[in-house]
């Protein structure tokens, strides 16, 4: 790619001798031009593949779009009415909320527990870190398929349970256990990522501070809650946000493990959106659901921005 800054000296020497005006292409201007060229691919990509489609969902949402019949008619707020009277909306939002909350609680507490356990220089600790992190690099669908296989009624988990005399449920086909299974499978897949972030944060907590507190008679628990937790709170917030936003985007796990069932008990918002748009060809209604998803993410982002000021102990 040719860059304007490479044509450097020619322009300057073409300037008439002793002219009072500076050349148009000053160093700053050439530099600015280079800046625009550098950001152009990313910027054009964002405009074309994020902002334009974002505008289009607001346009589509006002239309009834029958893909099969090829009709596209303006219907005003009909899709919004449909959204609010959709009997499936409440269960879908409940499933989304249960999944996100369950995932966040289980993921963050397990990540913190693992990080605290592994934050020492004992023999073999590195091997355990590798083990807990390894599912992060296993292909997501492969991991999910294996768990689907394990969680079948006659699968490996129930087989192992039967050996010790427990009659396991049909994990993915029963209302109570299906959602829990999806959450657990997802946590084991990605908890290593949060664990690593927590480990890095824990290693930044000054040892002298903890030892000084112990000398003053503080218990392990007090040291942890009063010193360690506040000091790693920026990382807790970061992992919280990453995990929540990630949880709202879960699709493959649901599609492979439960297809949203049993009933619609594991149909989260993204799964419902894709189902409406690409299975039932309801592009207008799918776009309305996309707006809802966008608004939820927006509210969460603004909320975490506000929380950040109040809750986090310090920031650099």
């Amino acid at each position, binding site marked *: 790619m040719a*860059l304007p*800054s*490479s044509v*450097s000296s020619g322009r300057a020497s073409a300037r008439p001798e002793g002219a009072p005006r500076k050349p148009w292409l000053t160093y700053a201007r050439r*530099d*600015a*031009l*280079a*800046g*625009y060229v*550098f*950001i152009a*691919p*990313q*910027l054009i*990509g*964002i405009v074309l*593949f*994020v*902002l*334009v*489609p*974002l505008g289009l*969902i607001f346009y589509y949402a006002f239309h009834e779009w029958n893909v099969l019949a090829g009709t596209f008619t303006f219907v005003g707020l009909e899709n919004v009415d449909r959204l609010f009277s959709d009997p499936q909306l409440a269960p879908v939002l409940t499933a989304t909320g249960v999944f996100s909350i369950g995932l966040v609680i289980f993921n963050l507490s397990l990540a913190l527990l693992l990080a605290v*356990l592994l934050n020492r220089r*004992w023999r073999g600790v*590195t091997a*355990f*870190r590798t083990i*807990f*992190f390894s*599912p*992060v*690099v296993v*292909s997501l*669908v*492969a991991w999910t398929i*294996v*768990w689907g*296989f394990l969680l079948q009624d*006659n699968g490996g988990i129930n*087989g192992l349970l*039967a*050996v010790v005399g427990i009659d396991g449920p049909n994990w993915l086909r029963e209302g109570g256990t299906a959602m829990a299974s999806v959450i657990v499978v997802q946590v084991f897949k990605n908890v290593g*990522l949060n664990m690593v972030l927590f480990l*890095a944060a824990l290693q930044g907590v000054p040892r002298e501070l903890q030892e000084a507190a112990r*000398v003053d008679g503080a218990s392990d628990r007090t040291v942890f809650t009063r010193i360690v937790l506040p000091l790693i709170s920026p990382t807790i917030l*970061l*992992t919280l946000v990453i995990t929540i*936003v990630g949880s709202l*985007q879960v*699709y493959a796990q649901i*599609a*492979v493990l439960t297809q949203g069932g049993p009933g619609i008990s594991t149909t989260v918002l993204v799964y419902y959106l*894709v189902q409406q*748009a690409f299975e039932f060809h309801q592009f207008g209604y*799918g*776009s309305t659901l996309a707006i809802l998803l966008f608004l939820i*993410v*927006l509210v969460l982002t603004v909320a975490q921005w506000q929380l950040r000021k109040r809750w986090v102990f310090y920031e650099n």
Partner: protein
Amino acid sequence: MRTDAPPAPAPAAAPAPPVVPAGRPRRPAPGSPWRKVFFYGALSILAIPFVFPTWWMITSSLKPVSEIFAFPPSLWPTDPTLDAYVDAFTMQPFAQQYFNSLYIAVFVTVGTMLISAMAGYAFARIRFPGQNVLFLVVLTGLLIPSEVTIVPLFQMFNTLGLVNTHWPILLVTTFGAPSVLATFIMRQFFLTLPVELEEAARLDGLGRWAIWWRIALPLSRTALAAVAIFTFLHVWNLYLEPTVYLLSPELFTLPQALTRYADAYGGEMWNVQMAASTMTALPVLIVFVFAQKQFVEGLAQTGLKG
């Protein structure tokens, strides 16, 4: 599978036992062997759900169909066979699908590295009018999940006649929202580079392009490695986009292909699925075990700098 890591750098001998205040007799002393037994015991139990699925995947792929649902479950195939691996290739164009996944991942990873290193550099080191506004525009890509825009994107590519080609995946993943995090990471990294380096280069007559390519990029190897790792993992795992855009089996990517192994009656063929899953998961896992330090530190860096 071996998951041993290189031995811990420091031997277990603690330098000095920390001072334990009096009055807490029930806690085991720091040097007590029970403490270690408890520690390693707890970690070993916790490790089971992380290791067992991979173990089950590999062993099941070697079992004949008759043994797949054996009771009690066999942790080791009694009569190992490679039939499932052969079936994986004959039932679907698996080699083609493997190639699709590989070339898409390489294209997107290299593309993202270039684009994010360019944009990140410009946002960090070059002054130009409208910089802050344009940076916010780019950052919207972090805010808007790709699921929100999948319907209009599908429609856009449909109008262009590009559905059932790899173009939507290649273009959107490289230039769109997924590369924004990379740009952000690269910007954070370039902000930390000493300004004197560039000034010296500028005095030597280098233009912006040369400064970026010959000075900034070589210095950003760690950040670029982090970007490469998480981009590759992201692309390798893409599922929604391929299922939306691709219809022909010979265009499928691996995650999509894995779910399509079924017998004539639509029943799942678990041993074949496990064989295909093993072939999908194992190469990355092996690379990870050998280069786990770079993986873990790289990904930690992406999070911490964010």
